[in-house]
């Protein structure tokens, strides 16, 4: 190229490393990124508008299809927001099962992140191992609710069905082998020289910047802020669980990798506690046949694998539809910080920056 001339290029919208239809406009000075602007909206389906024109119950299938890698976590936030709006108390057994499935979902989501992120950076082997374990989790989803990805797992007020017979056996089998699986992934990556060169010091985002931009989830925790909604504002059965919030202070891609790996271990711990302390009882609250809302507005946030997923609902008196249905998608807010991470870095590192944010365009565009 000519000297002192900046070049503009488009990354995406169809590019394997953007994990969907994300387009990033880049201005380059040689190999250094001087300007970065993410362009989104290619997958916009108007989920909020559609849910406002359906009943409270029908909204759930749309939450499945926002972040399709963590449908259960989306369902949980949706169900709890509705329960807050109506003032419903959920039975304790249902809370435990929800927690259990939510943690399985966190594992599945982190596994798919690990697989694709490593694949983007060039470590191919771990992809196959991570998908092997994810398959077991999807089998468990199938055993519980009949579908693997878009689960529609919960109902307002609890669950539709109790755990199927033999579910405990599946969980036990999974928990027995999972710690060794994590070790396998770490053996492949943690001390891998290429992996470390491509991640350490790459796509840094300081704690101040992350808080100012509203970034949540593992990205915030890797910057040293121990903010986990499961601890800060406990929901479902998390108040009764004993687990740690892993944090790192390096705030780079490698730190985020370590945080997520530590989180998977904690998730396995929570699953074990759920199975040990599973109370008996009903799984569905007693509800009137026809549910009509009162004038009320709620914002309920839960910790999805990607960060804080919040549902803002406005109820209208006597209506069966939400008057306003808004989703605070973690990926949408986290993606805002991409220019901050990528500008000043190399073009090859933007792939790492996108991967480390763990974005799913389905929830960003909604």
């Amino acid at each position, binding site marked *: 190229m000519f000297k002192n001339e900046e070049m503009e290029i488009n990354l995406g919208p169809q590019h394997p490393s953007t994990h969907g239809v994300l387009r990033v406009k880049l201005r380059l000075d040689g190999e250094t990124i001087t300007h970065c602007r993410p362009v989104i909206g290619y997958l916009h389906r108007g989920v909020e*508008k559609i849910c406002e024109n359906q009943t409270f119950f029908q909204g759930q299938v749309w939450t499945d299809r926002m972040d399709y890698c963590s449908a259960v976590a989306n369902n949980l936030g949706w169900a709890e927001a509705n329960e807050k709006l109506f003032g*419903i108390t959920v039975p304790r057994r249902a809370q435990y099962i929800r927690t259990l499935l939510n943690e399985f979902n966190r594992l599945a989501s982190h596994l798919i992140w690990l697989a694709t992120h490593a694949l983007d950076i060039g470590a191919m082997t771990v992809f196959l191992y991570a998908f092997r374990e994810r398959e077991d989790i999807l089998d468990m989803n199938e055993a519980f609710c009949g579908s693997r990805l878009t689960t529609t797992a919960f109902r307002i007020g609890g669950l539709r069905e109790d755990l199927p017979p033999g579910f405990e056996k599946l969980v036990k089998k999974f928990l027995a082998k999972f710690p060794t699986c994590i070790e396998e992934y770490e053996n492949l990556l943690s001390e891998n020289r290429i992996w470390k060169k491509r991640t350490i010091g790459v796509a840094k985002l300081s704690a101040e910047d992350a808080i100012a931009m509203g970034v949540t989830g593992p990205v915030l925790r890797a910057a040293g802020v121990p903010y986990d909604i499961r601890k800060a504002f406990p929901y479902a059965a998390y108040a009764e669980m004993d687990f740690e919030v892993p944090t790192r202070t390096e705030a780079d891609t490698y730190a985020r990798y370590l945080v997520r790996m530590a989180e998977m271990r904690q998730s396995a711990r929570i699953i074990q506690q759920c199975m040990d302390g599973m109370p008996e009882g009903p799984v569905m609250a007693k509800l009137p046949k026809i549910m009509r809302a009162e004038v009320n507005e709620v914002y309920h946030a839960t910790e999805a694998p990607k960060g804080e997923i919040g549902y803002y609902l*406005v109820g209208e008196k006597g209506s069966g539809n939400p008057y306003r249905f808004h989703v605070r998608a973690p990926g949408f807010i986290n993606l805002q910080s991409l220019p901050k991470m990528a500008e000043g870095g190399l073009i090859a590192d933007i792939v790492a920056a996108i991967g480390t944010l763990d974005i799913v365009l389905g929830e960003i565009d909604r």
Partner: protein
Amino acid sequence: MTEPNLPGSPEVPEAPAGPYVYDYSASPQRQIVMPKTVPLPSLKTYLAEQEAAAVADEAKWQKMLADFEIAKVKAEAEGKDAPKPPVRPVPRKDDNDMKTPWPQEANDADLHRLQERLGDKVEEIFEQAGELTCQVSKDAILEALQLCRDDAALNYEMLADETATHYPVATNFTFSVVYHLTSISRRKRLRLRILIPEGFSPESACAVYPGANWMEREVYDMLGIRFVNHPDMTRILCPEDWEGYPLRKDYPVVGWGQRDIAFREDRGGMIERIALQKAGQLGINHKQPKAE
């Protein structure tokens, strides 16, 4: 699948002559159902409603008593048995796990702190479903956000969410804009709310919380509220040339026909033929038919 009719064969119906205007009101999915009420949660409104309901209840009871007296006198005069005295109806108790959260008086120290510092710029404070709401006047929102972030007793470091709601039926405002703040260190949440009329541009929160950038772009894209002093006030999810604001209540669910070609009603090829006709009139080399 049936074979498509070849042009020129006698079964093909004639395309309508002249400019064809699609009748958007024909399909039920295109109907705009405007809301009838203003579901804005508020303690003042709730108390006023409760009072009105109590008055109506009392009036109904008095009428029942009066009717009973009349019936009694009438029965005495006719020499019949005296009618049963009325029983005051008690509200039915439902046996379920649902307990509707009503707005309550503000007890939280944060809300009182805000009221103390902002004075009469605070329009209302209340709690509902365990959530704190503070409604401030529309010109004081930046000041309120600044206070929430910088005041040592409040210390709300993060703007979790910002969104708006359209209230087309309300008389003195059109939109409510809500800001959900999170205090990571104090483990608290707070909702700030402003009510704005159509055409009013509130101050952008980007100066205090840079994360508001995309949230405000989304609000502008979906509801058409422009924010003052925003660094980049452009559409974010819809294309730049999109008409209308989809999350307004007067926008139909299926849109205004921007993507009508593939719709079921049009499978007969009506639109395609019209588009072809139009293209012929305009002299365009027609490939992808576009709806009107």
